[in-house]
């Protein structure tokens, strides 16, 4: 099975460890993983701001890079949401539709396709608060959202529970958006940062040493907020824990 690894721009530039963990994790399960060198972005920053025409060339490039793989896997829920649900600036050919349908976020790929019994290499003896980003929670449906009356389920918790030593804490508002919101974080920076302060404080009050998430963009924002107001909490992507990061 050939997997195309999609590493979004901000992970490439600022959080290479998240990309490396995702790659190594997929390789551990025996997949043939390739990172197409000419990839850049999925187009989401422009599309979320309403500039759909401006992301046509970026979307076309994405399809050129990822056409022909059995799956495209990325460690970023919001980017996968864009590709799967909103990627319509270009003509919807069979090729485009195939790439869109085969694009998975790493948690759902592991949970729904790989279905691992265990992560024997992973140990994480820490108290963690899980941050389900809004893109993974309410669009990709990683877990039950608190607003809906439905049975409990959580793909990230299913996976993380298989990691030795891990302990979970629950903040008072587990589903509350952290305020990143893509370009919202700069165009409405004050509300965005206040939401971030509240989010990291909520996790810290619950006793979390780490905030873990499938969305590095939320973590980047939360980390910036925590550092600014002096909340002593660390941030880690779920792929890093599953790949055996020790701390």
């Amino acid at each position, binding site marked *: 099975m050939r997997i195309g690894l999609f590493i979004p721009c901000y992970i490439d530039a600022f959080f*290479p460890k998240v990309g490396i963990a995702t790659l190594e994790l997929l390789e551990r399960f025996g997949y043939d993983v390739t990172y197409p*060198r000419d990839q*850049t972005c999925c187009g989401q920053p*422009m599309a979320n701001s309403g500039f759909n025409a*401006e992301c046509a060339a970026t979307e076309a490039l994405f399809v050129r890079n990822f056409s022909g793989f059995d799956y495209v896997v990325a460690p970023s829920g919001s980017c996968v949401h864009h590709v799967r649900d909103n990627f319509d600036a270009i003509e919807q050919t069979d090729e485009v539709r195939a790439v869109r349908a085969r694009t998975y976020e790493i948690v759902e790929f592991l949970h729904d396709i790989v279905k691992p019994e265990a992560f024997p290499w992973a140990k994480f003896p820490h108290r963690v608060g899980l941050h389900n980003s809004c893109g993974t929670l*309410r669009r990709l449906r990683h877990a039950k959202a608190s*607003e809906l009356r439905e049975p409990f389920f959580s793909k990230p918790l299913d996976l993380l529970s298989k990691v030795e030593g891990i302990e979970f804490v629950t903040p008072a508002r587990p589903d509350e958006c952290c305020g990143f919101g893509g370009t919202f974080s700069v165009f409405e920076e004050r509300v965005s*940062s206040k939401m971030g302060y509240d989010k990291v404080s909520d996790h810290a009050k619950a006793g979390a040493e780490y905030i873990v998430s499938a969305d590095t963009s939320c973590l980047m924002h939360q980390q910036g907020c925590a550092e600014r107001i002096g*909340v002593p909490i660390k941030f880690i992507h779920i792929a890093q824990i599953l790949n055996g990061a020790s701390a």
Partner: protein
Amino acid sequence: MSSEPIPPKGISTPETAQVRASEDGEVIYRHGQRLDHAEAASKPLRSAPEKQPRGARIRGNRPIDQAEAAARFIAAPEHEEMHDARLWDLRHKRDREMQVIPEWETLRALASAIKEHTLTHLDEYLEQFEAHAQGNGVHVHWARDAAEHNRIVHGILRDHGARSLIKSKSMLTEECGMRHYMASVGIEVIETDLGERIQQLDNEDPSHVVVPAVHKLRTDVAEVFAKTIGTDPDNSDVHYLAESQREATRPLILDADAGMTGCNFAVADTGTVTVCTNEGNADLSANVPKLHIASIGIEKIIPRLEHLAVFVRLLSRSALGSPITQYTSHFRGPREGGEMHFVLVDNGRSARLGMEEFWTSLKCIRCGACMNTCPVYRRSGGLSYGATYSGPIGIIIDPTFNARKYSNLPFASTLNGSCTNVCPVKINIHEQIYAWRRELVKQHEVPFVKKVAMKAAGEVLSRPAVYRAAVATANAAIDHLPRFVIYNGLNAWGKHREVPNPPDQSFHSWYQQNRGEKP
């Protein structure tokens, strides 16, 4: 409880961080104000109540700057924290009520389907409603827009020689600017909903569709009442304030010439109107004077009485987390010697019904659940939107009234989607917010600087070589620039957040080094 005012040791919020000893240990700062040592030790840190932050600045037709007003709201931490906690509490109670109803999701689906059916047969049901209401002895009027609504109401009042009008809360009359209009023609309007009355006395619009004064602290209310009805400015006891208001308003209600209500549901099959309140003030407004006028948005129609059961079960649970409103009043026809008038108002609704991406916003039953759950609304205050409707539902309705003036509002959202999940009639609110952004860009109603930035981003991100160079430069820049260059007023990210530390190498170059043999 979800919101704990005092953070545990070792955790500082921006607010507590402001109460701290400076380096010499002698001076204390709070909210940016220096307090000398003796004053800080002998008095409460704050002697005067925090001033209420006001809403968005309205400058004619120019785009409302929601972000600016929201920043001022956050700069008043007592208001912002109270507002966030109070509305989150409503959301919390809503969740609790939802858990009590096993068929909750079925009810939402039913409500949505009933609205969908009605809106797609609106002409038939409106005519049915009119005929049945007339059969009950009610006068029915049709208003194309806000101005016609106000003229019709004024005409009815003039015919009866009425000089004063008591009314219950109605977002439609807010939308029509009726209070201002009536003031201009010399008719005294008295709001009977407590929150709405507070807002009227403060000459401020409601900030929320259900709890109009939710952004005010009781000290703000004490200040308003002291100025307007003569209460003790230093007494902010809520019982005292409520009782004083009751004493001041009751005589006005008893003497009023005419009464007005809004409408939550208009039943086509019976020609009746249902109004839901918690204070019983709609009943006072409708029943004390002999003349009752109800203003009704044409989207309020439901086909039959049995459908009401679905909506009544959803409305107050979604709005306030209570099983039902204290009063659910049904108005059928005039009492003996009295008159009842229904004014059916379009005011842009027919046009909205024709908007392919946005027509389902007409399903809204004005419960406010989307506002209570919205993390942006809770931290901004409803008045920051500078529009009749605020929060998520406002963001998707307001631009239908004026795309230019409200062009910034669809950007006041993180697109988190919680609004869609709580909506009792299943409006895809966050998807419509996204669609409005596209629509406004198409109509060129976005700032030039954003256009330039997005066009540039599109250029860079579609050219791998240019992009690769940009990533390398960004890292190098952050690594080498002094702090004041990164953290200045021009870098919105860095105003209230740290910029991530650049790693030694990008993923791309790591991959090249470690998996270089791969294609």
